[in-house]
């Protein structure tokens, strides 16, 4: 102990200890600084991340509201089915990811084991259907067609089927009472897409991944009413998905019910008659083409003349809306949308467009009267009318001599209207129109709301087309490049000559265009619904009503949430006198005109029917049958593509719809007790004390 200090340290050691001290406390300061940064500086971000980590939502789907007809008969409702579902988080916790349980389940349900396994896998961009698109915390439905015996087995052998449940669940159903499918009007549901969930996030009705939304028809238009509000329960869960915290959330609120103006019985008759008329047409031989009629598609609209409410609306070809329930199979989907399907999903009453043929003549007549041609004047119904080198003929080249506009409607004389249209075209300047041509006929069409959607409460309605000067110019603008390209060719066939002519002055309204338009031919396109609006305005004395299917929305508790009152979209351009005269003329069509042979024996005195027939021709196709009719209460429009004449193909069908509605038998005797709907249904269906809409299933 001589040369070292008593403390046992040299200066060197002391310095080293100071260095060690500095090092140690720098480390601690680093930790403290980092801790401050994470907890104080960025604490909020991490708190949010932690919240997202441990909260999971479980969704109780709301029961979708029903769609009922005017008397409360359900067109779309829900049935209780035994739905077997699998809880994915339970399965994934098993050693084999639940493979054995699913295999046993497939055996019990008599399903393909692979399909069962596929149904519980989660969808991603590459996964083909079937796969689960919803939240992994949501029970995944395996089948909604379990039998009671299977459901009991699953419950009794719970230890063999962990994570599998069999619960009665409400599933959409289209019950088709009276065999009225109402397919295209009702539309269908399909699961919501990611984009839709994203879009609806901040709106009043946010969507959940498990939601089904209306894709077409009423299901789509009234989706937000019908859907209700799904109940959401939030659970705090641990890393393995086990619930550890208190549940909170909102209970599910059932969707509201939609009362429509549809009468399921009339709908059934309309569907049946349309299908039968097409069937009948296919047995007839078309004398022009020499082949049987194709009758490939058709539509019928039954509308209340004084409100625009739709009583029945059928479209052919149709389909069973129940194929959508529980997920559509690939085969069925192809059958509905494939190339050979002829698009049964299309509602041809609102989306099918074709030239209206002679049913258009009421519009031409109105335009002519407005242009100064007296309705009762005398107009030459020659057998043909020539403009330059082109000759336009009457149907079957018949001539009637000088007749009134009314008689021209009655016998459906073309040349009367050709002449008026040609004269007007010349007055407006012919090939060199002035700045402000009158265009009386085109104006009348626009005023009847043609060329615009009617605004019916069904999605994706077609607007039709009025081929006036403006349209001609727009069309030419869009086509001229193609035409002019074709015109450069040296070829001299018809197509090339036409292209050359169109390239130069395709924007001009030609005499042929004006003349064709006057009888509803050429470029003019209408939907059956638009014609219903036009004819209803004649029936009701001049109001263009917006067609409506929805009548009222009734809450799940039975309170009326909203009533949809009839809504005008405009007034007929026809004067009261013209309307009166056209009414008389269209009644003559039934009593002695083009439709008379189909209405022999009809009690016209008691129930006067008015009609206008139409036979529209399209290049390369057989004639399209049009029949526009109305009584004081109803307007019925029927059209069948490639089925021949208006009265020939559609006459009997339309007559039988009237017979059913008014209770008229084949001899013309009226039996009020057999009448389905002799007058429009004005009141809403009865609602009982539980808030349930009472269905009146009587009749037919």
């Amino acid at each position: 102990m001589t040369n070292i200090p008593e403390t046992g340290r040299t200066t060197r050691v002391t310095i080293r200890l100071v260095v060690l001290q500095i090092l140690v406390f720098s480390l601690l300061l680093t930790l403290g600084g980092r801790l401050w940064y994470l907890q104080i500086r960025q604490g909020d971000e991490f708190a949010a991340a932690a919240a997202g980590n441990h909260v999971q939502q479980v969704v109780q789907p709301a029961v979708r509201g029903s769609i009922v007809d005017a008397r409360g008969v359900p067109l779309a409702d829900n049935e209780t089915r035994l739905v077997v579902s699998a809880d994915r988080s339970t399965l994934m916790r098993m050693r084999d990811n639940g493979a054995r349980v699913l295999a046993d389940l497939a055996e019990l349900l008599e399903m393909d084991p692979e399909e069962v396994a596929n149904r519980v896998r989660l969808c991603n961009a590459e996964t083909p259907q079937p796969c689960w698109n919803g939240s992994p915390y949501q029970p995944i439905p395996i089948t909604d067609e379990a039998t009671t015996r299977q459901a009991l087995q699953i419950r009794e052998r719970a230890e063999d089927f962990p994570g599998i449940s069999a619960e009665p669940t409400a599933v959409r159903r289209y019950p088709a009472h009276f065999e009225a499918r109402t397919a295209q009007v009702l539309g269908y549901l399909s699961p919501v897409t990611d984009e839709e969930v994203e879009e609806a996030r901040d709106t009043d009705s946010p969507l959940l991944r498990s939601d089904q939304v209306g894709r077409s028809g009423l299901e789509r238009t009234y989706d937000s009413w019908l859907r209700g509000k799904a109940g959401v329960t939030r659970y705090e869960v641990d890393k393995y998905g086990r619930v550890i915290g208190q549940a909170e959330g909102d209970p599910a609120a059932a969707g509201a019910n939609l009362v429509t103006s549809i009468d399921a019985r009339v709908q059934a008759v309309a569907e049946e008659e349309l299908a039968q008329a097409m069937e009948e047409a296919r047995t007839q031989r078309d004398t022009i083409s020499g082949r049987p009629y194709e009758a490939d598609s058709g539509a019928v609209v039954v509308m209340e003349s004084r409100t625009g409410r739709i009583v029945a609306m059928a479209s052919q070809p149709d389909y069973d809306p129940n194929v959508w329930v529980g997920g559509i199979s690939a085969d069925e989907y192809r059958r509905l949308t494939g190339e050979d399907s002829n698009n049964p999903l299309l509602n041809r009453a609102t989306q099918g467009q074709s030239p209206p043929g002679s049913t258009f003549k009421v519009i031409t007549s109105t335009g002519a009267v407005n242009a100064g041609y007296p309705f009762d004047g005398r107009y030459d119904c020659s057998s043909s009318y020539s403009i330059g080198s082109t000759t336009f003929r009457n149907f079957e080249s018949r001539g009637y001599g000088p007749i009134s506009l009314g008689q021209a409607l009655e016998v459906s004389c073309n040349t009367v209207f050709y002449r008026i249209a040609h004269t007007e075209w010349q007055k407006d300047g012919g090939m060199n129109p002035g700045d402000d041509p009158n265009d009386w006929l085109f104006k009348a069409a626009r005023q009847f709301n043609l060329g615009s959607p009617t605004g019916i409460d069904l999605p994706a309605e077609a607007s039709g087309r009025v081929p006036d000067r403006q349209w001609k110019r727009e069309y030419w603008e869009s086509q001229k490049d193609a035409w002019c390209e074709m015109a450069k060719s040296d070829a001299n066939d018809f197509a090339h000559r036409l292209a050359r002519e169109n390239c130069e002055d395709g924007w001009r309204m030609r005499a042929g265009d004006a003349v064709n338009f006057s009888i509803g031919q050429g470029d003019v396109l209408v939907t059956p619904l638009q014609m219903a609006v036009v004819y209803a305005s004649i029936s009701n004395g001049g109001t263009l009503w917006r067609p409506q299917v929805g009548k009222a929305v009734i809450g799940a508790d039975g309170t009326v949430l909203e009533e949809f009152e009839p809504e005008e979209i405009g007034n007929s351009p026809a004067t009261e006198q013209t309307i009166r005269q056209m009414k008389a003329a269209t009644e003559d069509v039934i009593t002695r005109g083009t439709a008379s042979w189909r209405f022999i024996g009809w009690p016209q005195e008691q129930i006067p029917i008015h009609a206008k027939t139409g036979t529209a021709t399209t290049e390369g196709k057989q004639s399209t049958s049009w029949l526009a009719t109305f009584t004081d209460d109803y307007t019925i429009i029927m059209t069948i593509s490639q089925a021949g004449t208006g009265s020939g193909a559609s006459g009997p069908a339309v007559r039988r719809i009237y017979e059913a509605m008014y209770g008229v038998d084949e001899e013309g005797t009226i039996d009020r007790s057999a009448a389905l709907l002799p007058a429009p249904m004005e009141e809403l269906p009865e609602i009982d004390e539980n808030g349930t809409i009472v269905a009146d299933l009587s009749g037919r």
Partner: protein
Amino acid sequence: MSIHSYPLPKRGDHRPVWRRLLARDSIVRRVDWILLAAAGALSLLGCLLVWSATRNRTGITGGDPQFFLIRQGLNLLIGVALAVGVMWLGHHRLRGAAPVLYAVSVALMLLVFTPLGTEINGQRAWISIGDWTLQPGEFAKVAVILSMALILAARVDTADRTHPDGRSVLQALGLAAIPLAIVLVDDMGMAMVIAVIVLGVLLASGASLVWTAGLVVAGVAGAVLVWALGVLDEYQINRFAAFANPDLDPSGVGYNTNQARIAIGSGGLTGSGLFRGTQTTGQFVPEQQTDFIFTVAGEELGFVGAGGIILLIGVILWRALRIARGATDLYGTIIAAGIVAWFAFQSFENIGMALGIMPVAGIPLPFVSYGGTAMFASWIAIGLLQSIRMKRSLSAA
């Protein structure tokens, strides 16, 4: 050297008990109470955090929420008893026992590779005897410190030299190399701690800086070589680097690091309250009662509680450094400095990985993490520190 006296009441002392207790040479005055209080507080806080982390983990508690609390309480009691024992014996008497302690530690470490050894989380570092598991590496830390101090201080404390000579340093390094080589096989974290202890001991011993610098250079060169030769698979490198970029190992280390950071970050200033941390209750952080115990403090006690843990560790290190400076001989100084290096690095690595600034390694937080052997070793270290301090107090008297 004179015969050392220990703080036992002298026979024939006729002073009243309270006077004896308050006298300058009494045990009450010579014990470093601040150090004891800090270690005790940290250990008790650790028990609570272990309890909170394991309450809901029925998978490992066997359904008894207090299972880990009781076990850790027991560990603490045994640890304190060991510390008292070490204080009783004194670090100088342990000098004679150091070679035995060293041999036993190395033998136990080798036992790990026999069928008695158990693998936990991919690391073969435990011996399992019935229900009990023992981690010999923890004792090896104490053994390395004691035996290196013995050799390095021997010639200085006998006043032969002012600083340890090359031979002593080589002997000491040779002794440390054996346990280091054993843990290198399968316990990277332990190897890192022992390596840092060796550096700390060398630094404090006053040996030429060439040795310390040489060791650091050799270590870095070795790491570079291992990396360059491709001895490690890419996933091992990724796991190492994932603390900085969780995307490198998103489901493994990256996930853990991320969840740990979320847990700590969500604590804010005061935390969610004990037992009320959703990250903790939800078991999003793995190994939360051992390696990631700091995240429980971070989430449930917030900046106040987690900062408090760092502060308590700071207090222990401050007292230990004071003891190192005040030691009567180099032997005591080296032991205290070795303990400082050990606690400081282990705490920094453990908390640093929870905070995402250090790579993830299976290293417990001294006094706080669940684990018997680690608790025993830490408290033995406290006993050693107290013993060194009491020696000084007595000499100063």
